């Protein structure tokens, strides 16, 4: 392993870029805007390239943390600056660094107000998100986890829609409430184990009684972040009011905090409680999948519909995670990654027509295929990916999750699988109403197809989605060893329970 602190560089480079933007001298407003955009784009592109090194250099044969860095931070408290990634977190870092330049590019022309602050907010957020996924110290983790709230609050509140204040407050206070309970759990863990180091905490083994409480406290935070039914109500509001790029980051990365948190904390640190609470998670997830899908079916607002679809998809993810099987968990991670790309793309797709018509209502549109063929094709691809068409990234995740849950509980599997059908219903229904039919509305007659910048925004996402669907092996290979390591204790328990001799293997 090289001594080069590549992970810190990926984490804090966006912050350096934000500093540069801050230093742009005032003067001609147009010049300032252009400079801010270019600096943000360059910074995020360089960060993306650097983060690709992580993948290239990643050793897929070990479950240990890689690219580790450790520096004394609060030595008196035994809290250190400890970073590192494993097969579970590595792709989330990449997802973040991929989506940030896309967000910058997507806001290139649409955001004209306070561009400097906007770009700074996105770059700061990138730092927080990458840091969150690669922190290996609970206190550091919490700082990044919570720090995201500040830029996101400002992004929704400053550049959002008409009800942005309500949405921003709801987002902030919901997430904060969950998180402070997690903070107490973190403190209790830290006090009990005497360390804040995540790898050390994974080894520690908390007492069964304590696990229950800790698990619940972490659940409070992750369930809100993910979000799970019934604490999902902040999400539609936040999505509808946030600017397009804000929705992209929210759906693409922030929702993954919860799923990642379950994998990083709940499963390895509180295994007994995890087994104990799995039925609760299954119940909530099934409700999310079925009920929220039905709610999505009734939506008239495109962004709201996609927001509800996100909740439903996250229901799949939680089911997958708590199957505690290799397929289920790999499927869940894969689904989070593909959902990160697909839902990001869907929000961008809504953004494209919103920029032209300033309406997100499905009823505003109709017959767009006649005026915007390229757009219709792109939309179709991502819509089908979201539904889980084989050949796209969405399929692999759903398939693996269902494979995993069938081994555990057939009923849960059957009920979860209805979500696939319902997902197809609301997506196709929306697609038909927006794209097909005749162009009858006068103001749609002059609508223009996607321009070169917009095509450039979607091209990488299309590439990734198809790649994930057609040849998922490179992605799954990275996760494989880490996931096996994660479920090892559960496998042991299962073997012990079913009486199969370990020696027999």
């Amino acid at each position: 392993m090289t001594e080069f602190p590549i992970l810190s560089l990926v984490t804090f480079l966006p912050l350096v870029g934000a500093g540069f933007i801050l230093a742009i001298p005032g003067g001609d407003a147009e010049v300032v805007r252009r400079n801010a955009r270019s600096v943000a784009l360059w910074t995020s592109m360089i960060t993306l390239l650097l983060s690709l090194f992580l993948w290239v250099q990643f050793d897929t044969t070990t479950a240990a943390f890689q690219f580790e860095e450790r520096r004394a931070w609060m030595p008196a408290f035994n809290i250190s600056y400890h970073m590192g990634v494993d097969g579970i977190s590595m792709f989330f870092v990449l997802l973040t660094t991929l989506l940030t330049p896309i967000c910058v590019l997507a806001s290139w022309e649409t955001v004209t107000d306070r561009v400097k602050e906007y770009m700074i907010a996105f770059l700061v957020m990138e730092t927080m998100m990458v840091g969150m996924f690669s922190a290996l110290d609970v206190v550091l983790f919490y700082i990044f986890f919570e720090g995201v709230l500040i830029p996101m609050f400002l992004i929704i509140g400053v550049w959002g829609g008409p009800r942005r204040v309500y949405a921003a407050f709801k987002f902030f206070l919901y997430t904060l409430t969950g998180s402070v309970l997690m903070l107490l759990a973190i403190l209790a863990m830290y006090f009990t184990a005497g360390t804040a180091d995540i790898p050390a905490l994974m080894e520690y083994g908390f007492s069964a009684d304590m696990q229950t409480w800790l698990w619940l406290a972490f659940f409070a935070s992750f369930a809100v972040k993910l979000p799970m039914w019934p604490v999902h109500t902040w999400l539609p509001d936040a999505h509808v009011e946030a600017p397009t790029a804000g929705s992209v980051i929210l759906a693409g990365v922030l929702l993954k905090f919860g799923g990642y948190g379950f994998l990083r904390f709940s499963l390895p640190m509180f295994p007994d409680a995890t087994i104990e609470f799995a039925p609760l998670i299954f119940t909530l997830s099934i409700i999310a999948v079925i009920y929220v899908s039905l709610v999505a079916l009734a939506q008239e607002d495109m962004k709201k519909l996609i927001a509800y679809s996100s909740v439903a998809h996250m229901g799949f993810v939680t089911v997958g995670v708590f199957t505690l099987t290799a397929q289920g968990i790999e499927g869940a991670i894969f689904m989070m990654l593909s959902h990160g790309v697909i839902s990001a793309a869907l929000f961008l797709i809504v953004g494209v027509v919103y920029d032209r018509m300033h309406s997100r209502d499905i009823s505003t549109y109709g017959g767009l295929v006649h005026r915007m063929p390229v757009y219709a094709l792109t939309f179709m691809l991502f819509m089908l990916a979201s539904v889980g068409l084989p050949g796209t990234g969405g399929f692999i995740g759903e398939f693996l999750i269902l494979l995993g849950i069938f081994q555990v509980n057939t009923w849960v599997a059957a009920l979860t699988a209805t979500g696939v059908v319902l997902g197809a219903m609301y997506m196709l229904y929306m697609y038909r109403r927006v794209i097909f039919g005749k162009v009858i509305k006068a103001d749609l007659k002059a609508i223009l197809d996607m321009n070169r910048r917009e095509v450039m925004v979607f091209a990488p996402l299309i590439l990734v989605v198809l790649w994930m669907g057609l040849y998922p092996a490179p992605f799954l290979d990275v996760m494989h060893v880490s996931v096996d390591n994660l479920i090892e204790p559960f496998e042991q328990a299962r073997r012990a329970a079913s009486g199969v001799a370990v020696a027999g293997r």
Partner: protein
Amino acid sequence: MAEVPNLIPALPEIFLVCAAMALLMLGVFQSGDEGKDEVKTAQLISNLSLTTLVLTLLLVTTIASGPMLTFGGMFINDSFAVFFKVLVLIASALTITISQEYMTRQGIARLEFGVLILLATVGMMMMISANDLMAMYLGLEVQSLSLYVLASFQRDDMRSTEAGLKYFVLGALASGLLLYGCSLVYGFAGTTSFDTLAALFAAHPEEAPSVGLVIGIVFILAGLAFKVSAVPFHMWTPDVYEGAPTPVTAFFSVGPKIAALALFLRIMIGPFGDLAAQWQQIVVFVAIASMVLGAFAAINQTNIKRLMAYSSIGHIGYALIGLAVAGQGGDGAVREAGIQGVLIYMAIYLFMNVGTFACILCMRRSDHMVEDIDDLAGLSKSHPMMAVALAIFMFSMAGIPPLAGFFGKFYIFLAAVEAGLYGLAVIGVLSSVVAAFYYLRIVKVMYFDALGDSLEKPIGRDMAGVLVGTSLIILLFFAWPSPLLSAAAAATRGLFAG
């Protein structure tokens, strides 16, 4: 008895009090008869006061070497005292810095201001160093009397006069309670010395203290709770904060509060440390009540100074969690963690609060001060830098990482969890979510609302300096927390060693 007491430990106080007298005389002789010189004199005096405070700060830090007792054991100078004295001196110096422009423009630039701040500082330093009930009361009164005058410094203004009077009446009542408590303790224990009291209670750990003594402690607690404005002795805070001239409010919210808290810690841990079972529940109650009231009562405030009053009540509640932890008993390390949490919390609180008040002092529109939260509408457009600074302070007070305010809460809650005070910790974090709402509201007004009437600009150079300094401290604390942590640890050890 003819022996001259060792003056070295009290040298900073002696220097400060002499300087204050000298400045007073200098001012009186300078100003002469003509009124037009008054402003110049006032500025001279406040600049000299600032210099004096800086010199005192140097003195305090240079003579710090282990615990030193003097005046027959009534006065102690240990690392705990040094830590708090540094905070108080910084608070006084910052207050003078941010007040100059305001005083001149409000037409109340008088030489007494600087001198009164110096005298109040002397009182606070004596409180911090008190090692005897009498010395404590003496310090408290020197400080309080200066503060009563400061509260009504704008004597032609109804609100200011009212604030001063209110503060005086209620403050005198609290001092009376405190003194009554002291006399009960003296009557039942037979001594006023902290060291003797501590030895006395330590010698008879099994024996239940007499009822009179417990009542005395409760009275002392009530008097001190008044001074730190903890619920249920907080009623004066919003009115006085609103009425007093803003720089004075800024001073009230940091200096006296920090000094009184230092006294609170010393008296509870020192002489009454072994009676923790008697007072710990009261502190728990006061902490919970302060946090909850601070969070809920602030929601409906429209005046930013009143809001800050409730916010400071809430913050004291959090700080008192640390004391409740120290009173929980058990492991010595846990008790130290509690006190250390309080010290870190108060140090961070100092910078957040001074910074916020510097922002409030910049809220001026066509030559009169405005104090409504709505007056900040669209501040991010008209004063981007000031808006960023205020947003940093607000997020920090709400306890959002990576800002310093988060770390303050972090150490406090850590101590609470270590001591097993889960109920207190849960109430604490939940009330911090409620409090986050009103801190966010200020951010909302600055960033989300359309620009109304712009506030005056540019802001003064002193203000800009204080704003940049305090906001950088709050923003970058996470990068290098060790100096404060180790200073607080050393101060805590000093308290427990004594």
